[in-house]
């Protein structure tokens, strides 16, 4: 198992992301600098939160052209697992790895709160049965307002690509969307920070189940033991 956490100039959740995998799950974890052209042997690539390139132009717009993103695109096209959080979610949307875009919160405020999230039955690994019906995970963003056109939203719903929805919408996201996956089911993006929800001093420990569900997509040893599917869900491959 090999977890690669990307680092862009302005990333600030890279160490938290490193910590949940290295300490929370005791997995071999390493950083990959944005100038690197190759990812090496990675089982999961984490695109962490922060303010890459100062959020200049648009959030994630410049990071998308970092040398490492070419490697991430190839890796994702080969079916590699990607978890993109907050600014990472903005980056992978800009890169076209996930559909849609994130714009300014409808409140115009930077929202830094713990949100209640409704878990959706999205995949065999990412579902209510493995994560819980509702979870509490912190958000911290000014631009988390998810936008997609009607046809795109219909596709997300039909393919069960929505992972998490806000119980109380903090940013104006369409359909209360807090996180989505790609159609193939190997790229996961979300505004909430699971890496800020696992230590005892964190607002909750629900982030661990989220991260495990992403890993269990490819590595069944991370699947929650007791869970039986709550309802039939499509198994992607």
């Amino acid at each position, binding site marked *: 198992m090999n977890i690669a956490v990307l680092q862009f100039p302005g990333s600030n959740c890279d160490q938290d992301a490193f910590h949940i995998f290295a300490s929370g799950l005791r997995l071999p974890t390493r950083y990959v600098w944005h100038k690197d052209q190759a990812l090496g042997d990675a089982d999961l690539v984490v695109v962490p939160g922060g303010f890459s390139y100062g959020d200049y*132009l*648009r959030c994630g*717009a*410049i990071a998308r*052209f970092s040398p490492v993103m070419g490697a991430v695109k190839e890796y994702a096209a080969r079916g590699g697992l990607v978890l993109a959080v907050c600014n990472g979610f903005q980056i992978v949307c*800009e890169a076209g790895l996930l559909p*849609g*875009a994130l*714009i*300014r*919160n*409808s*409140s*115009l405020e930077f929202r830094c709160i713990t949100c209640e999230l409704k878990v959706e039955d999205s995949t065999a690994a990412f579902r209510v049965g493995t994560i819980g019906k509702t979870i509490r995970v912190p958000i911290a963003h000014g631009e988390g*307002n998810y*936008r*997609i*056109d009607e046809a795109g939203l219909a596709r997300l719903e039909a393919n069960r690509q929505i992972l998490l929805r806000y119980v109380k919408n903090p940013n*104006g996201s369409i359909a209360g969307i807090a996180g989505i996956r790609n159609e193939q089911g190997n790229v996961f993006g979300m505004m909430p920070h699971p890496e800020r929800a696992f230590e005892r001093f964190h607002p909750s420990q629900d982030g661990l189940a989220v991260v495990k569900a992403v890993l269990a997509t490819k590595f069944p040893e991370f699947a929650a033991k007791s869970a039986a599917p709550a309802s039939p869900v499509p198994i992607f491959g």
Partner: protein
Amino acid sequence: MKINVFVTPKKNVLDPQGAAVGHALESLGFSRLKSTRIGKLIELEVEAQDTPEFRARLDQVCRDLLSNPIIEDFRYEIASR
């Protein structure tokens, strides 16, 4: 050659900044306001000739980097020196 690239939120995309500024304009007594949209102006200076090939390249960078076609429209004005 000077190029002004205007990037604006798409008509059907919500513009929270524009809405907030619109409310402020109304509270200043600037009435009969129908809409306020906020975009950005990007000024470029390029040493190149205005050829169809150059325009194609410019369109491409506007689509790929300067704007996000999911949420924004762009247009540009080219002024020769």
